[in-house]
């Protein structure tokens, strides 16, 4: 005897109902939690930028952000200026202050979606990226730029702080889905800290970037002018991704710093 649940009509009705019920639940959940999630993401961005500026609760060996509760306040205090630069064909064609940018778009500069800007660049040749100005713990003026690239499995991104001479004064990296224990370790202190003090420009002022290098004979990273940091074993492609995003995205800002010096 054919069971009731074997009928085609039953199967179709069941499938339709299931889709509606599940879709409804997920849509309801997503829209009711959306505000909280965007708020969390905003705070995370602020914490990331603050981290690169050297404002964090790092304890020995592990990277700890400033408390989510005070991130907003710290961000207002420590980030003295948020500039928005418009890049076209390797040049900076426009520099806007936070106020000018907000008058134009009603959006905080730090919320600029770097990924969207990268696509925009492909389509129109133009993109807008933020640059955050603040003071290092030593009192030097430093600039934090966002970077974004590809790891092994998915996106990787970060914030790098440099001073006027483009010497790295802080770095924060994060990833969407790198392998735990391998590529995912780019967000560990021992990797990020290696970038501190590394140079991006040669003596002649040519942009060279920093290479995540295997076997650079400097595992403790004492040599700061070799344009290399020690790679993580077993995560070559993630490391190459870091190298590439530093070269590509930080390279964009070179004209800004050249201007600054003149």
């Amino acid at each position, binding site marked *: 005897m054919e069971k009731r649940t074997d009928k085609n009509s039953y199967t179709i009705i069941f499938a339709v109902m299931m889709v509606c019920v599940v879709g409804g639940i997920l849509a309801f959940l997503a829209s009711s939690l959306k505000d909280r999630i965007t708020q969390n993401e905003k705070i995370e961005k602020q914490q990331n930028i603050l981290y690169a500026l050297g404002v964090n609760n790092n304890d020995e060996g592990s990277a700890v952000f400033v408390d989510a509760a005070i991130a907003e306040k710290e961000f207002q205090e420590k980030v003295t200026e948020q500039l928005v630069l418009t890049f076209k064909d390797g040049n900076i064609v426009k520099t806007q202050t936070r106020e000018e940018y907000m008058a134009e778009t009603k959006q905080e500069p730090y919320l600029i979606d770097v990924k969207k800007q990268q696509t925009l660049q492909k389509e129109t040749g133009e993109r807008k990226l933020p640059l955050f100005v603040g003071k290092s713990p030593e009192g030097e003026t430093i600039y934090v730029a966002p970077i974004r690239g590809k790891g092994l499995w998915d996106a990787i991104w970060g914030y790098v702080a440099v001073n006027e001479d483009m010497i790295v004064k802080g770095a924060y990296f994060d990833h969407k889905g790198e392998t735990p*224990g391998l590529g995912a370790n780019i967000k560990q202190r021992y990797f990020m800290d290696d970038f501190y003090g590394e140079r991006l420009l040669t003596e002649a002022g040519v942009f060279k970037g920093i290479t995540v290098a295997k076997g650079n004979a400097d595992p403790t990273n004492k040599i700061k002018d070799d344009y290399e940091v020690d790679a993580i074993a077993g995560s070559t492609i993630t490391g190459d991704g870091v190298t590439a995003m530093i070269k590509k995205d930080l390279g964009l800002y070179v004209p800004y710093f050249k201007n600054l010096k003149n």
Partner: protein
Amino acid sequence: MALLSKKDSKLLKDPLLDNNPITIQVLGICSALAITAELKASIVMTVSVLFVMGVGNVVISLMRNIIPSKIRIIVQLVVVASLVIIVDQVLKAFAYELSKTLSVFVGLIITNCIIMGRFEAFALGNGPYRSFLDGIGNAAGYGFILILVGFFRELLGSGTLLGISVLGDPIAKTGLYAIGYENNGFMLLSPMALIVVGLIIWVQRARNKDLIED
């Protein structure tokens, strides 16, 4: 009266050893290889799978009489996927830090074949309570192996456990490293997980000859 009848406790205990989903049924190997390079990831994955298996098995079991057999696999997939997404969204809203840790695993949980396997083999034919026990038992059996593999891989590969150095500092040459010990970077790569799982299978079958198939 005991809390669990003999039959019920068998549901919990069997998958831990003699019918372990990884070492005996050889399911869920892919996630066992991918994420066991550190202990913390193994533990996070174990807890997530415990949750999804426990709840998912109950949901499927409650629906077992109304699920059309022709599309039952799709229904199972929808149940797992929605459960995982719901958990992920709720964590993103209320425990953002935790959700960041979990992000990589979301996809891996959905495609974990142990989950689908238990839905198909057990929950579709048994009541909710027994299905719950079966789910928890299998997830625990899976997690046990995961944690065991994660323990050895992190210890021998990085010299740390849960991120804390236990063998000294490899660069400053303290602790064990002072007498010439080196971390085995190979342990961090996926093939070594397979070898560790193989060793566990070997030990297990050597202890219990009944498990050996001819």
